[in-house]
């Protein structure tokens, strides 16, 4: 596919670029960045004046629910939602039905995504068989079939010995372990963050230390085994501090947070709003501040949505019975752009967290507009205002705490390998 994106503000941290340039795409690859470039033969021209042109956004933590839970989401709708949110790639977690713990499931996901998906899908396999935390899954096989990381996301590997062996084994296979760090005994029957709001609402709390000590354990295991580790969905002040300290010691640890953890506090649960119920739960103002500091100082490497679609029937119930998780693909970009307004990140930093760093962590040749790179590109209008409505969301599920909220900033073109897969201009 040939394409010329003219006159946009190109933000590419991989080349330390932030200037007005044309981007020329030939045969699905970046050909050249420059001024006054000529349109290619038979190619389209996108006028990007006043718009941002960035490497395609990459969400390294989504739940596509396919196979097995297609009533919530599937590869078709999930990747459409990704495209609408400006993501050209997503990495999908293995807690499907059955769990993606073997190459057959991995191959199914890869094949279906190739045939019917709108954006690139990079599967993440399970650390343990069935994500049961008992026996390692066949990581080598899964990697060959297309998995880019392993994780038992949704639950921790409770047994520390098994987590140690997982880190060692994965290192041998050259595949990243993504930890869902949570001390289950401390979580108990908790349904929201433990604190004043939970006290007032009479809901069982999940203490922040349940995350902190699990992150500490996993970080120590990574250091002990000299293995890389990526910590998923960091939500607490304590986790940020532990990871900052580990990085300072030279540990090969990276981490991500999700937009809700820097946008909302547990106040959002008031009214027993199940669209504010997720795991880890929304925390408190000092955690939100620490997450922002972590993004600012580089402790937090990536912003990932933890897009977790659930059917209305699973959310429109009493608070304790509602499932954990919210959708995030279509609201992440405007929420992250707010951080630019708040000077937590500059635009280059934002693109790093949402494209370059996740690509690096997963070992993917994405997140860059260097010549010869696959032309995954997002064109963003940072000023576009819109309102989140159920009808407007491409995701099959509508479990978002931002329904009815006004957003500023949107993807106007999502381009995968030189092909416009989503247009909102």
């Amino acid at each position, binding site marked *: 596919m040939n394409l010329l994106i003219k006159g946009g503000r190109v933000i590419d941290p991989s080349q330390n670029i932030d200037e007005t340039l044309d981007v020329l795409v030939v045969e699905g690859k970046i050909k050249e960045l420059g001024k006054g470039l000529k349109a290619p033969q038979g190619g389209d021209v996108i006028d990007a004046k006043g718009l941002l042109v960035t490497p395609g956004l990459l969400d390294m933590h989504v739940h596509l629910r396919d196979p097995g839970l297609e009533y919530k989401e599937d590869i078709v709708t999930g990747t459409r939602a990704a495209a609408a949110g400006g993501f050209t790639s997503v990495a999908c977690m293995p807690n499907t039905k059955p769990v993606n713990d073997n190459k057959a499931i991995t191959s199914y996901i890869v094949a279906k995504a190739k045939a019917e998906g709108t954006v690139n899908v990079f599967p993440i396999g399970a650390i343990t068989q069935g994500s049961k935390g008992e026996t390692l899954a066949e990581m080598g096989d899964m990697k060959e079939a297309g998995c880019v990381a392993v994780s038992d996301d949704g639950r921790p590997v409770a047994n520390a010995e098994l987590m140690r062996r997982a880190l060692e084994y994965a290192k041998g296979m050259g595949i990243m372990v993504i930890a869902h760090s949570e001390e289950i005994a401390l979580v108990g029957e908790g349904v929201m963050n433990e604190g004043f709001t939970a*006290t007032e609402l*009479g809901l069982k709390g999940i203490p922040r230390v349940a995350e902190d000590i699990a992150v500490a354990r996993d970080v120590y295991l990574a250091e002990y085994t000299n293995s890389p580790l990526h910590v998923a969905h960091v939500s607490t002040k304590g986790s940020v501090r532990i990871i900052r300290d580990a990085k300072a010691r030279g540990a090969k640890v990276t981490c991500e947070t999700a937009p809700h953890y820097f946008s909302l506090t547990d106040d959002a649960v008031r009214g027993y709003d199940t669209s504010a119920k997720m795991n880890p739960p929304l925390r408190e103002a000092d955690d939100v501040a620490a997450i922002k500091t972590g993004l600012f100082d580089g402790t937090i490497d990536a912003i990932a949505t933890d897009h977790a679609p659930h059917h209305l029937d699973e959310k429109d119930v*009493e608070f304790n019975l509602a499932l954990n998780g919210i959708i995030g693909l279509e609201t992440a970009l405007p929420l992250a752009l707010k951080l630019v307004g708040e000077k937590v990140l500059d635009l280059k930093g934002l693109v790093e967290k949402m494209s370059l760093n996740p690509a690096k962590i997963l070992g993917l040749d994405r997140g860059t507009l260097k010549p010869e790179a696959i032309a995954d590109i997002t064109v963003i209008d940072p000023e576009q205002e819109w309102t989140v409505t159920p009808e407007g969301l491409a995701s099959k599920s509508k479990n978002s705490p931002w329904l009815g909220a006004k957003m500023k900033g949107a993807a106007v073109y999502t381009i995968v390998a030189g092909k416009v897969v989503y247009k909102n201009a």
Partner: protein
Amino acid sequence: MVTKTLGDRTGCFSDDEGGNMGFKHKDIIALKDLTKEEIELLLSTAENMREINSRDIKKVPTLRGKTIVNLFYEASTRTRTSFEIAAKRLSADTVNISPSTSSATKGETLSDTALNLLAMKPDIIVMRHAISGSHYFLAKRLSCSIINAGDGAHEHPSQGLLDMLTMRDKFGTLAGLKVAIVGDITHSRVARSDIAGLTKMGSHVFLAGPPTMIPPGVEKLGNVTVCKDMREAVEDADVVMMLRIQLERQGKTLLPSLREYARYYGLNPEVLKLAKKDAMVMHPGPINRGVELSSYVADGAQSHILNQVENGVAVRMAMLYHVSGGELPTE
């Protein structure tokens, strides 16, 4: 339209000038959602209702033709009975549904159960549910009135009201009272309703219990002080409210034994001496004798536990009356 008060018909409301004008809620879910004036109104209506309960023929036609469903997802004897008696004394028709006999065991959702009930046109649903906030969930979906008979660890407003009425009977006012609440605050909906109501009415609440049972931030709920020692809370108290300890519900990680609990957090005559001379001893029941309350105290002269139960009926009559709009059918 002329709103007739209960007094027109029964003669007991002769001083009820405002009728029911002050109460605008369709539901009563939590005392924290009510204003001081609304709580006062409920309490004074309850005082009037008490007169009915002392008559030979304990029945007025106020809610004749109204249907009240008692939907109890958690076992309850006294609260359910009390609501049922309250409804009957106001001439409402009552239906009791409990989980063992309901479709909850067939896997029906709360929403579906409620919508099905609603189709049968009840006027009020009185519900007890194990999950905090369930009543808000229901109230959003149903046009009939919802009264909370206890939700999880959130609130138990009728208990809070009857506690306040019992205290007001003795002291004439709630303003300035020192009320000690001792026990498992974390899991107690009674404590939350008491705290919400009492602090609105000007009382000062002192909490005590093992730190494993004191929820974070509870002191921010109002004029609330958390005490390290039960004695601190009880000292000079006007009221000592003891909460029921339920080891089976709260798990084994919170306490070593009931024996030790009784030693440090149980109310016995010796500890009670620290309170004001005429201090009231209260308990929402059922009592664990010898655990949170020694029998000498439970059955002693300062115990007001049975007054609480008696007031329960009057308070619930007032709640039913006010959510019904407090209007009498015109003759």
